[in-house]
């Protein structure tokens, strides 16, 4: 059954960053402990902090190891730093995030932008291994919102949650609006965004839009695919995955990330341990991503090159359904 407050039709595309900005401003207005920590890449709510709370802005320049560790220091004194930088800097600060944030379960919210395979940056900037790295860290929670509504709603929830959170922001084209404004985000709970009994597509972030488009394509071929939005990647919603495996008997995971260590492996583990069903993973096939031009045409070119378009997802679903006994 489709979850509450899911739109029947995909809405117009809207960049999630605007939702993130509204969410942080709303949270920071009611909680004076929330800080903006920057690494020379600005911050989604930089203007609000500048005008309303300049003493709660900390600029630490191009030194991500130092910035992430200092976030731990600020959190140890009861503050909630929201650190914003690019996803590829995660590798630069990985030991620090582990040792100086996760070990002590410090209340730091890490916003990493430009995750995934899109973008003009090329291999260095198109970071496709962030989920794998963050999943391995004890105490880390990973959230990847599917649209602008969820992006905003998730912020107040993660601010009320005590502990480190990785909030994943993709360098994707704006995802379509999937949820109604009344939607409520729940940490650790996935949502069913399309109904279907023949197979289940589990995806996260921008790829939820493409998965819904794939489900629409499949319906024309008389295959009813259920689409699940796994916006909390860790801790993963095991219940919904097991239920989907039992009820639809075929699972396809879709992610804007390498197939190694990402959503696909997380879902595969749940299935392997609870209820076996044929499974395919759609994502970067253990490879880095080249740069692409940021136009609709360029984005589609990249998607086609890496087999990440709705048509590719539909093919994967058909292959997986064929494996059902």
């Amino acid at each position, binding site marked *: 059954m489709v979850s509450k407050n899911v739109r029947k039709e995909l809405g117009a595309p809207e960049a999630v960053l605007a939702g993130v900005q509204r969410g942080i401003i709303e949270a920071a207005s009611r909680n004076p402990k929330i800080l903006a920590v920057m690494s020379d890449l600005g911050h989604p709510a930089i203007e609000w902090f500048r005008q309303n709370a300049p003493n709660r802005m900390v600029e630490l320049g191009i030194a991500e190891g130092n910035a992430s560790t200092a976030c731990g220091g600020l959190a140890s*004194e009861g503050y909630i730093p929201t650190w914003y930088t690019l996803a590829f800097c995660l590798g630069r600060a990985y030991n620090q995030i582990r040792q100086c944030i996760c070990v002590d379960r410090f209340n730091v919210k890490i916003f990493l932008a430009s995750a995934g395979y899109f973008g003009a940056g090329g291999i260095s900037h198109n970071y496709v291994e962030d989920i794998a790295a963050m999943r391995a860290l004890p105490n880390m929670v990973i959230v990847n919102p599917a649209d602008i509504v969820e992006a905003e709603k998730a912020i107040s929830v993660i601010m009320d949650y005590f502990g480190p959170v990785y909030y994943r922001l993709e360098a994707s084209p704006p995802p379509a609006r999937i949820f109604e404004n009344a939607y409520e985000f729940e940490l650790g709970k996935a949502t069913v965004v399309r109904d279907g009994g023949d197979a289940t597509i589990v995806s996260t972030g921008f790829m939820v839009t493409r998965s819904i488009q794939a489900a629409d394509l499949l319906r024309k071929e008389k295959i009813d695919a259920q689409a699940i939005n796994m916006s909390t990647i860790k801790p993963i919603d095991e219940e919904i995955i097991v239920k989907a495996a039992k009820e639809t008997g075929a699972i396809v995971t879709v992610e804007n990330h390498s197939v190694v260590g990402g959503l696909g492996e997380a879902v595969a583990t749940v299935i392997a341990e609870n209820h076996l069903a044929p499974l395919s993973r759609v994502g970067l096939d253990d490879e880095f991503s080249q740069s692409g031009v940021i136009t609709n045409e360029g984005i589609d070119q990249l998607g086609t090159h890496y087999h990440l378009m709705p048509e590719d997802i539909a093919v994967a679903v058909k292959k997986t359904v064929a494996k059902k006994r």
Partner: protein
Amino acid sequence: MGHSPELIRKLEDMAVTLRKDCLTEFEGSRAGHVGGTMSIVDLVTVLYFHHLKINPRDPDWPGRDRIILSKAHACEALYAALAEIGFISKEKLPTFYQLGSPLQGHADRWCTPGIEFSGGSLGEGLSHSLGVALAAFMEKTVYEPPSPRYPTYRALPKYRAYCILGDGECQEGQVWEAAMAASTYRLDNLIAIVDYNKYCIDGPVNDVIRMEPFADKWRAFGWWVAEVDGHSIGQLCDILDLAVNLYGDGRPKCIISHTVKGRGVPFWEERHTHSARGPEMEGGLKQAAGLYK
């Protein structure tokens, strides 16, 4: 300046007690970072039993000064001090390294009352201290009334952050990222103390990677710098007082503390022992048993 001979003697006695406590820990674990632990014992003594603002009844008292042990492998010295203050039971000292012990192999904030920072991965403590020192200025500022020395009201920090660094640790680039940021923010409530015991695992620290001119490096990064004999209780007392009294000059403070690795046990001093187990540990413990009766 100048501290009473009685105070100095009292602190020197406490340093001996802490060294004995460290040896108790090593006797329990039969392994440990003996060199870097014994080299900071005098510093730790002066900090905890003379200099720091702490509440012996409450390790989490909000007004306390924060000690961040960046060279967290020397946690044995801190555990000894925390046991003497009473934050942890002295009976726990021999359980060092053991499964379930509050005395973990590297300082652990969640396991041990009085430990501020879970370290072990070198080069990160100064950045954490930076965050802690920044946080002191985030909210309500306390102002000191005008005085002949400072004619205007000046903001006081709620506490100071003291970061104990190793010398070899300063080969980590992140130390200098934090150093740059600290002087940018004019964090004069941040005091870094480098335990310059001259040796790291692979040999003399300046042969491994040249640190000198070390003090000049800190000065170039915008810090006030002083050098002391890290085994002279009197010098340590004086320099820490001075660093605190300079508060208001807008500079973070760096004290380079010249020490001897393994100080107090010649067997380890001669060998510049970093971490010891087996014959290296037993030889030191045997000699120490004779020295610290």
